[in-house]
């Protein structure tokens, strides 16, 4: 009996040691996987929006104005003005132009990749997180999982994303995105059947992305958009602030600032 107990104790120790070793191995493997991944630290803003004034005008607008030239720079390429819309897409665009007094709920995907907000890209072996300052986060799973079955998916503002690394290029597939225009009035009216392909990489001090969007419902052909971000000075952390004071209204001819609804005591 004494021998049996001793054998049992030894077995438990062995199992414990094996378990600890397995955990240590997994930790070691993850550390090594982490070390191989790119690192894109900083708070990134779209290239044309770096240096935006306190009033909201990008430097290129002011420079063009000083030169007496028209403003030709596309500040939000993803707004869909230049997309190759098919008949249904054109119908949606025309309907969108008629609505002047809609409120936005935030940026949403894909606009958050080209919006007036810094983004942060957190890279881990299991997933990449892309975060902006409006409580909007994309989860891009890079752990090798396939896209979930369609029965497990439903349209959301951010959609569902999987990704993988091709060298230092992050390749992202995203589907099941709600019509972005329903969330943000400045976003393209793509359908929930749209498929978003992205390739992101660091090019020196510039973060770049090629986005190709296919949508059998609204686009006549794949729509390609290139985006570049630079690190803007002055950001030391990502502060999440609710989109809760949208005072942009319409007077019929133009947008305008609506009277404030916030009182001095905050109610």
């Amino acid at each position, binding site marked *: 009996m004494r021998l049996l107990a001793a054998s049992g104790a030894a077995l438990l120790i062995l199992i414990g040691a094996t378990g600890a070793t397995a955990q240590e191995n997994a930790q070691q493997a993850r550390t090594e996987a982490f070390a191989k991944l790119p690192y894109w630290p900083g708070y990134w803003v779209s290239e044309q929006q770096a240096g935006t004034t*306190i009033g909201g005008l990008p430097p290129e607008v002011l420079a063009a104005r000083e030169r007496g030239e028209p403003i030709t720079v596309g500040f939000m390429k993803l707004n869909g003005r230049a997309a190759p819309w098919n008949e249904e897409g054109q119908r949606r665009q025309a309907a969108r132009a008629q609505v002047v007094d809609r409120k936005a709920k935030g940026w949403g995907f894909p606009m958050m990749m080209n919006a007036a*907000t810094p983004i942060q890209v957190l890279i881990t072996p299991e997933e990449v997180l892309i975060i902006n300052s409006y409580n909007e986060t994309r989860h891009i799973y890079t752990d090798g999982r396939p896209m979930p079955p369609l029965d497990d998916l439903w349209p959301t503002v951010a959609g569902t994303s999987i990704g993988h690394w091709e060298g230092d290029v992050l390749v992202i597939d995203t589907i099941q995105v709600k019509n972005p225009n329903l969330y943000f009035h400045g976003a393209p009216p793509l359908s929930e059947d749209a498929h978003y392909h992205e390739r992101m990489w660091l090019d020196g001090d510039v973060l770049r992305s090629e986005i190709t969007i296919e949508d059998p419902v609204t686009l006549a052909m794949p729509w390609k958009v290139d985006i570049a971000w630079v690190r803007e000075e002055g950001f030391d952390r990502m502060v999440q602030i609710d989109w809760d004071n949208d005072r942009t209204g319409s007077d019929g001819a133009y947008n*305008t600032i609506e009277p*404030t609804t916030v009182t001095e005591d905050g109610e």
Partner: protein
Amino acid sequence: MRFPIALACALALATTGAMPAQAHHSMAMFDQAREVTVTGTVKEFQWTNPHSYIQMMAPETDGAKVVEWSFELGAPMYLYARGWRPKTLKAGDKISVRFYPLRNGQPGGMVVDIVTADGRKLGQKA
């Protein structure tokens, strides 16, 4: 008129609902060919998304009647990057605001820069 081409461009963009600037809406609502300066007393500084606003009590530009003005700024994160903080302005502060006025004549506009009563300029870099 100082910026006729930019104005024409802004008007053209306004008709299509385009957003030439960084904000979440068209900037065509502001007459960017005209700068106006108003001096008054801060009623409230709204440090909010998608825009920050200064509510200020000041006389109308064409009269002596004191009214409440609404001045629009960019989003807090952009202001933060320019050195602004939620307490940069507080109720009771005396300031002069240079701005592009609303086209519809309402008391408000887009901030160009701000000078405090002691002469400090709260502009690009506060």
